[in-house]
């Protein structure tokens, strides 16, 4: 029945605020009605997760009190933080795992304390439904999708630009910058992007493939080395995320690309504003929107709903799939639809 109230938490802030104020009056306690929600981020200084957590913070404004934790890329630290938050009496947990495999352990803790649990961005590889706890859900993407979309983007552009096949051998010589090894997104993007391109009938040759750990500096260093080694042979750069793509672009610029008509197609994933700038300037070919606004917002909404004992999707336009996961769709982003991405990043 309360669908209306929670339907649009960002837009509907007013009604929320007033209702909670009423309750405050009743209880005589300032924050009593705003449920405490414990949040862990696998690594606070991860680019994309920063957007996601900022979205969480704004989604929580007036509705919940977030207790943020930086898990420092260390699952053990995260376990400790979960213990602390349970001790502290949070009403729900939103967890961006360090090690996706640790989901059941975290769930055990939540279960013992009877606290609902939302995983976000990193998914239990066996499927969230395989976890032995009824109050656990996942919000994220379908990793494969980002690979497919990136592949599609590349394939279409490649076909439209025969001149990109610089050596004219009819084969796309590419280099691949991978994200963190073992990360479901990284694995899927690496695999499915290339598969999609091949399925489109394009012959490919992988010149180099290494992990850049989602990181711009590493991306730049690797690309510089490869440019020294492969020189003009490289015809396409695939990056598992935009962070690394930024580094790649810097390396290319330093090697004389993007001026005097020298061009190299580079694609990433995430659609962070910096990448959008580069697309705007015709430097990056495109990217895949990994919607942080919705991932952040939905995870917090679900936490608040479940903490209040309501249906977890109460007031949300999303549905659960058979693995108890909400899938936020990826979107291809090129110069034509930059606005879409900008909106998702709260830039408009």
């Amino acid at each position, binding site marked *: 029945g309360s669908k209306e109230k929670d339907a649009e938490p960002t837009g509907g802030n007013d009604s929320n605020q007033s209702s909670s104020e009423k309750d405050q009056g009743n209880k005589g306690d300032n924050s009593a009605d705003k449920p405490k929600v414990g949040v862990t*981020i696998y690594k*606070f200084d991860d680019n994309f997760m920063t957007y996601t957590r900022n979205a969480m913070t704004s989604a929580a404004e007036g509705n919940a009190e977030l*207790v*943020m*934790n*930086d898990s*420092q*890329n*260390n*699952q*053990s*630290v995260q*376990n*400790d*933080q979960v*213990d*602390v*938050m349970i*001790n*502290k*009496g949070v009403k729900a947990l939103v967890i961006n795992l*360090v*090690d*996706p*495999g*640790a*989901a*059941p*352990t975290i769930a*055990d803790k939540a279960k013992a304390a009877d606290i609902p649990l939302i995983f976000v961005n990193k998914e*239990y*590889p*066996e499927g969230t439904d395989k976890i032995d706890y009824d109050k656990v859900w996942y919000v994220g993407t379908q990793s494969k999708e980002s690979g497919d979309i990136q592949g599609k983007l590349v394939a279409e552009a490649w076909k439209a630009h025969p001149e990109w096949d610089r050596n004219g051998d009819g084969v796309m010589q590419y280099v691949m910058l991978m994200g*963190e*090894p*073992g990360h*479901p997104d990284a*694995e899927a993007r690496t695999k499915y992007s290339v598969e999609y391109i091949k399925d489109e009938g394009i012959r490919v040759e992988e010149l180099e493939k290494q992990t850049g750990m989602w990181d711009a500096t590493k991306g730049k260093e690797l690309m510089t080395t490869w440019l020294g080694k492969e020189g003009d042979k490289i015809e396409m750069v695939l990056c598992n995320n935009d962070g690394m793509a930024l580094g790649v672009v810097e390396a290319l610029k330093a090697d004389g690309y993007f001026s005097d008509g020298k061009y190299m197609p580079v694609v990433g994933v995430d659609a962070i504003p910096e990448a959008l700038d580069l697309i705007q300037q015709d430097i990056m070919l495109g990217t895949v929107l990994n919607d942080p606004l919705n991932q952040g917002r939905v995870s917090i909404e679900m936490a608040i709903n479940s903490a209040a004992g309501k249906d977890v999707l109460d007031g949300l336009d999303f549905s659960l799939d058979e693995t108890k996961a909400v899938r936020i769709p990826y979107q291809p982003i090129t110069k034509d639809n930059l606005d879409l991405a900008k909106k998702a990043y709260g830039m408009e």
Partner: protein
Amino acid sequence: MDKIIRKISFDKKKISDLLLKYAIYFVLLIMIIVIIIEDSSIVSWRSLATILTQASTRCMLALGVGGIIVLAGTDLSIGRMVGLAGVVGASLMQSPGFSRRIFPNLPTSGWFIALSILFIILLVTFASFINGWLTAKLHITPFIATLGMQLVLYGAASSYYNALGGSPITSLNEGFKYIAQGKLLKLKFGSDEFYISFLMIFALISILFIWFIWNKTRIGKNMFAVGGNAEAAAVSGVSIVKTTLIIYVIAGVLYGAAGLLELGRTGSATNNLGLGYELDAISACVVGGVSLMGGVGSVAGIVTGVIIFQVINFGLAYIGVDPYLQYVVKGMIILIAVAIDTRKYIKKK
């Protein structure tokens, strides 16, 4: 009259001496008081139990490296030892009921689990032994020896992990997980609760064991001698090589055990497990008064160091300090604590 004045100033001096001597404990106390003032709900038996449980594996690692530091060495490979134990352990001890077991034909009996545990402890101990050998026999400085080992272990564990599919190894044997996550005893105090976890027991055993080694045995005394003045030890007939190797082996056993417990606690392993643990372990030792120049240190100090770090981590997270600010506060606390504690060592000249 003169005598009385002297008497008083003497007592004053005694008090300030006492304050100095136990400075680090006072710092701990003040820290706790400030945290409590911030959020008094932290005072509970449950908090205490959580802190002690969380400190357990760290304590074991710190005790391991503590001996190495007393030898005037260091160990940068701790984290990767934990990672190795984690990845190999996880691959060997998956739950029988799990459909996508990596090695579906591996036995799952208690015996096999016990054997796996033994094997992994031996494996890690062997790696630590090699560290000792590199330092004592090949005379490579411990910093470089263990840095090299760090890289080799990480590369090896990661390659193995990658060969197994490169995704988190989950669904561990329940019995094994119970060892790391179980509780021996729960004491209810109304809605509050104190418990004694198995982890605490393991830590306690390690503390007693290392205390005994350091204070009661020949190897312990030799360790202090080698760390304090290797030349003097050598001319007194102490074998530096043997002493070093034994201390690294003891550290290895602790690392192996702690690694397995970390695995059990996390319930899953990636090659990333253990990242950066060496810094935590070494820092705890140094804050606890173990000198990086060798020859000086105590088990009580190390345990205090570990607990200080754990209280800081727990306390700051509990009172909900902004995560980035937490770093600043943590850094400041460490600096202040050690600055005060250091007063007592300053030469009176």
